[in-house]
């Protein structure tokens, strides 16, 4: 699932000398398996290389060790986490340990029986995502099948009194239907709707030219969202996340590297964010070989970009560096070719012109592009093919 995770703690960015705070947020990516094929999927492009998933015993130990360090929010995601049949066991343990437990799901597989079992296990919250759930994009846009499924699942969620957050990834191909998406969310009784514009990593990066909206689309979608926000202020909270290519300052990625977020991927690799495995020259430890304490406080991978000592110009001497800590390391690597560079979203970055070029290109009609290089759907076959071609995103 797409994670748009927010932690409104007053946890300040760590200075270099101070011991980092605890990994408040634990994201357990239980599997890369998924019945869906989203063109913006954030799982690594080479996900199909992971053959052996971390077993139940190891996950239980991870939950315990992270909780002992101070983790308090726990997200179960994937792939589709419901494909793990030990999900209830893991949720139950997380609940007993005192975590606030979140399930990030497409809803596929959330039956009445499983919803009840998860409730009994102590699950606190379900984030349901709208996805392009079939290979026919039209199906999503006309949202017949999607709507039926979400309707059924939303009812199950409501019947079991889970708070419901709906997440919909927004992009060039569905942004013009944003009013319909909002209306659907209201009708389904969601308390919160996250309209998360695609950020360009992993599969979304492969499909970037199909997915980056025009400026006009974006402005109009935001205006529509604001209208609904006002009209339904008591009913639903709507969060609208702008694609950062349209910004001139980067996001403070993951609220700071190794600052609050700890992701464990399906094979047990510990990462500061779910895309960090693409970064070259960084050795991220596996929970199979190391304790969470050693991983979080001692490992090279987690310490590498903590604080600001690693920065180069223009970030090093930038008066704004505390605001964004130089942005996203993966974006710096993907676009500027150096994980320690400024995030090229920043207009002070010498590579900012590349972002501008993407944005300019997006203003043109893309019909030709559609036929020249078709959308790549996320599935194991494409994954292996892209991996052979050496695409790393």
């Amino acid at each position: 699932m797409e994670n748009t995770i927010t932690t409104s703690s007053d946890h300040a960015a760590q200075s270099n000398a101070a011991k980092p705070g605890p990994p408040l947020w634990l994201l357990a990516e239980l599997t890369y398996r998924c019945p869906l094929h989203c063109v913006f999927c954030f799982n690594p492009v080479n996900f199909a290389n992971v053959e052996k998933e971390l077993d139940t015993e190891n996950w239980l130990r991870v939950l315990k060790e992270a909780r002992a360090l101070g983790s308090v929010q726990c997200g179960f995601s994937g792939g589709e986490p419901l494909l793990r049949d030990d999900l209830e066991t893991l949720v139950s343990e997380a609940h007993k340990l005192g975590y606030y437990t979140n399930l990030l799901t497409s809803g596929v597989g959330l039956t009445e029986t499983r919803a009840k079992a998860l409730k009994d296990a102590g699950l606190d919250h379900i984030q349901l995502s709208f996805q392009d759930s079939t290979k026919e994009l039209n199906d999503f846009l006309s949202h017949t099948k999607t709507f039926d499924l979400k309707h059924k699942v939303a009812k199950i969620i409501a019947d079991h009194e889970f708070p419901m957050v709906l997440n919909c990834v927004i992009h060039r191909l569905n942004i013009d239907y944003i009013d319909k998406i909002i209306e659907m969310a209201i009708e389904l009784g969601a308390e919160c709707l996250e309209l998360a514009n695609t950020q360009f990593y992993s599969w979304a990066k492969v499909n970037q030219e199909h997915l980056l909206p025009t400026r006009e689309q974006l402005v109009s979608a935001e205006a529509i969202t604001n209208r609904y926000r006002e009209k339904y202020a008591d009913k639903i909270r709507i969060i609208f996340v702008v694609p950062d290519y349209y910004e001139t300052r980067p996001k403070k990625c993951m609220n700071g590297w190794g600052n609050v977020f700890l992701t464990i991927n399906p094979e047990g690799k510990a990462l500061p964010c779910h895309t960090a495995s693409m970064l070259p020259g960084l050795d991220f430890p596996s929970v199979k070989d190391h304790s969470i304490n050693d991983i979080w406080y001692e490992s090279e991978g987690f310490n590498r970009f903590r604080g600001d000592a690693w920065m180069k110009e223009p970030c090093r001497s930038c008066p704004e560096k505390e605001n964004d800590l130089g942005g996203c390391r993966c974006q710096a690597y993907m676009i500027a070719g150096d994980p320690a560079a400024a995030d090229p979203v920043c207009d002070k970055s010498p590579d900012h012109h590349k972002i501008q070029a993407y944005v300019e290109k997006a203003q043109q009609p893309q019909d030709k592009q559609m036929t020249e290089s078709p959308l790549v759907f996320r599935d194991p076959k494409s994954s292996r093919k892209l991996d052979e071609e050496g695409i790393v995103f």
Partner: protein
Amino acid sequence: MSSDTNTTFSTSDIAAVAKPYRLQYEEAQESWVLLYPEGMVKLNGPAGEILKRCDGEKTIDAVIRELEKDFEQKGLEKDVMGFLDIALEKRWINLTTPSS
């Protein structure tokens, strides 16, 4: 110090932490926190002391008296009502008026 006349509720009401928030003490942060879907609010000392007493049974008046006793202080009503007013606005708590 008398009670704040701007508040829309009275000390005879009963406050409780509202769904989907969950209040708990976090050793690692040495503070009370409110947890909610995918988020957390770290409470300062007084806020934590007030909220943990809002158990859905005691009246606000009883909460104030308990705080005054436990912290050996007087005149906390204004501070408590002020905080609860903010908490209500943020939907951290809900209030009920006891019948009778």
